[in-house]
């Protein structure tokens, strides 16, 4: 069987190939839906340039970064059954400094996700992801602390059972309000920063 034959045969088991339940774009329902979307939602603005993330470079450069899973950063990633994403959290440097929270800066961060902490050890917090906003598709994320959790200054203190919103840059968890326990305000900021 050549590739063309295989493709035709696969098309034959397309579950929608004989379906009449596809709503045409010319339907009244489709027209009403598009009008509702255009009337009720606002457009996003163009995201800021990557160079505005340079504030994190000094901290990130000193950290060990471990990312497992090809194509995790900056892509839509693999299937949800992929290996855990590994990040590093370290805020122990006295040189670390915060910038003010800004949704347009948040929008440039990747990966970004919401998840619940399922396990915490002296060196690793494991989160089960329930929503990816950017840059990944793993079901779980492991955040390692290279100097122990008590050394953290600006990154969240993860607790089992608590849901968090987390961002990272170059494999390192961002603090300074860009990661933290789930609150309606933080969730709204993530929804605004990552419309897709």
């Amino acid at each position: 069987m050549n590739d063309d034959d295989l493709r035709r045969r696969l098309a034959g088991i397309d579950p929608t190939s004989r379906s009449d339940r596809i709503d045409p774009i010319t339907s009244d329902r489709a027209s009403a839906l598009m009008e509702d979307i255009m009337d009720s939602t606002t457009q996003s603005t163009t995201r800021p340039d990557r160079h505005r993330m340079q504030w994190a470079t000094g901290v990130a450069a000193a950290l060990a970064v471990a990312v497992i899973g090809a194509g995790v950063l900056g892509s839509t990633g693999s299937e949800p059954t992929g290996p855990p994403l590994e990040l590093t959290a370290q805020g122990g440097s006295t040189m670390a400094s915060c910038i003010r929270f800004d949704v347009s800066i948040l929008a440039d961060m990747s990966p970004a996700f919401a998840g619940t902490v399922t396990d915490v050890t002296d060196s690793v917090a494991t989160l089960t992801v329930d929503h990816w906003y950017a840059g990944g598709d793993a079901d779980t994320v492991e955040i390692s602390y290279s100097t122990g959790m008590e050394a953290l200054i600006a990154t969240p203190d993860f607790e089992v059972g608590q849901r968090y919103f987390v961002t990272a840059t170059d494999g390192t968890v961002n603090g300074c309000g860009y990661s933290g326990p789930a609150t309606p305000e933080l969730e709204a900021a993530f929804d605004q920063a990552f419309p897709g």
Partner: protein
Amino acid sequence: MDTLLCVKTSPPDNRRSRFEDLAGEVYEPIQRYLRRRANIDQVDDLVVDVMTVLWKRLDDVPAGAALPWAYAVARRCLSNTRRANARRLRLIRKLETERPIRDREPPGLDVELEEALESLPTDQEEILRLWAWEQLEASEIATVLGCSANAASIRLHRARRALKSAMERKTTTVDGHTRVEHTEEERS
């Protein structure tokens, strides 16, 4: 630390016109994409989610590749819905995972192929669906999966080979069910 924000906007009427053109191109294919993969009772909500994202991110839609880009949006919406489903299931201690209740016609037209396809690793199954059901070429599949065109081409080639192999080598019949054995290479 303050920086200049460049905000790109378009006249409202132009945006509406562009979105209507985009909707005309992707609305029906997106429904098919989701009906092939999502639980039936979640398809309508997912369609709304995808179209809403396309409206919000209209300025990011790449010229000449709107449909693959829309598939990538749909893929992410679907993944997040599946995670929400799993989270809900965990909360009620229902740990069993099931294949989605898809918008299927009655089975049996090509059982051999269906079983061979479903026996493949998930990523190979998906790339073959994108190729044969969405009728995408490797460069378009790359847009959906977020990988390079070269990587998509290689993965597609390997998936086709794995499917043919699964159909040819099949197999052992156990209690009336057909089972396909994998080689290590096909699992990778």
